[in-house]
């Protein structure tokens, strides 16, 4: 698949124009790939390398260094539960277990049908909401309890 469609290329050109070097635009270009295609495939890595005139390895190293670039199609609904100290003090371990039981997957996994994914992540900068999670790389939900988790699963998994 050619990821650099006319529209994608136009958007990418706009990103590149903001920077002093082509390479400096790499993180934002990869975000654009994520937003458009949902993950960074090996083909996408190569196409980006080609577009920015970089060795494919340079792109690959960056994709693998950062946690927000998914290398597999992402699950439809993604729960990223914070496990760092403030959330841990508020019981995040228990809540991650509850999630695992309810979803039937372990933290770090995606369900076989691709409907949901669960990750234990490090501090999301919202410790005042502890215990908290981020849904679909967007909304933050705090004050988690087992009941609240059941509601969230219902809300996101049935819509």
């Amino acid at each position, binding site marked *: 698949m050619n990821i650099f469609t006319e529209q994608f290329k136009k958007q990418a050109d706009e990103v590149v124009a903001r920077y002093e070097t082509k390479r400096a635009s*790499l*993180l934002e270009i990869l975000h654009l790939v994520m937003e458009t295609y949902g993950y960074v495939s090996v083909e996408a890595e190569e196409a980006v390398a080609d577009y920015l005139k970089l060795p494919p390895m340079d792109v690959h190293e960056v994709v693998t260094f950062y946690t927000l*670039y998914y290398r597999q199609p992402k699950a439809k609904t993604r729960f990223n539960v914070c496990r*760092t100290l403030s959330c841990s003090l508020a019981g995040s371990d228990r809540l991650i277990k509850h999630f695992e039981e309810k979803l039937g997957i372990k933290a770090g996994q995606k369900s076989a049908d691709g409907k949901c994914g669960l990750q234990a992540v490090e501090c999301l900068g919202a410790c005042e909401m502890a215990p908290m999670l981020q849904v679909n790389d967007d909304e933050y939900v705090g004050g988690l309890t087992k009941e609240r988790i059941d509601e969230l699963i219902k809300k996101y998994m049935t819509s």
Partner: protein
Amino acid sequence: MEKLISKYFVPGKTFSIDEYIADGGYQAIRTVFEKLDSASLIETVKKSNLRGLGGAGFPCGIKWSFVPQNTGKPVYLVVNADEGEPGTFKDKYIISHVPHLLIEGIMIAAFANNVHKAFIYIRGEYTRPYQALVKAVNEAYEKGYLGKNIFGKGFGLDIVVHRGAGAYICGEETGLLESLEGKQGRPRLKPPFPAVVGLFGCPTVINNVETLSYLPFIINRGAEWFASLGSDKNGGMRLFSVSGHVKKPGVYELPLGIPLREIIYTYAGGIRDDRRLKAVVPGGLSAAILKADEIDVGMDFDQLRAKQTMAGSAGVIVMDEKTCMVRSLLVTMRFYAHESCGQCSPCREGTGWVHRILERIASGGGKSKDLENLSDICSFMGGTTICALADGAAMPLRSYPQKFKEEFEYFIRHGKSMIEQGEEVSA
């Protein structure tokens, strides 16, 4: 207590450019354009005793005075909005509620350092704050507050908003520069310091969001006034992020030097369920822990250093009497093991090793030599590496077992916690 930045923290509200202007916003930059030059502006910031609020506390005006202006290269301003230090969430409030305050601060810093292009590096998980920030930058361009020849005064400034992609190490200033250049966020050896050789090999000023957001207040109300709010050599106020076992977690804007006790009991409402306080991390996860009887310390960079801990990012994490310190340290060290960039072996190996030892202790397999081993690892980890992540990891690693020795010894001897909890930490 008077509120400065936090008066804008109205739940659910982002101040638009017009609302910010109606509230007196963008007056400071007009004053700067009309009355000050670069040298007098830097002098003002020095006099204010404004410290770097990202964590290191370096005096802002002094940092600016190191930037060489005669290299023939452009000078860049990089705004650190990576906010990765666990326990810290204040920059998110500034960006979400009053992004124009930050933009005005950026304009002031740019004018002082002859900068015409600034990058804001915002952590990738901050999706909504990012949207608020991009919107504000666009508003500023549309109104002619950014771009060429601002207010017809001959000064031009562009701002580029750049998202990180999930790596704590990119908050470290040279890791951030690498990341901004499109690479893995591996910190650079210093010297040279970024002030001299920074972004794209050019002189670069790096400041935290909050540091820059206090600049408009300093211009509007004077350096002496700002300095007088805080303690000796620690000017003004700062945003304390308070979390953990307090009744009212949140962001509290208070003067530097305020006793930790007041933050916890007067502002954050005291300990949840009226339990007793056990311990506090005073300045983000990387600060050494304080015991309940150590909270009369003044919360500024120098007083906390004198107590062998640090003011850091002002992330105050409070733990009550039911907290198991072995588990808290395990959760803490798991973070560093996960976030070490891996280029220095003491850090890469040390954090991983410590994490495994603590995991073994927490699952009941502690050995009598473990505490001694942890202490040895700690001493080779700190001070021998490219960046300060390893020192940050060494601080809790040294202080927890030192201050809560009997709890660690109990856990190792009995294979279980001295504190009733019975919960497991997932690996």
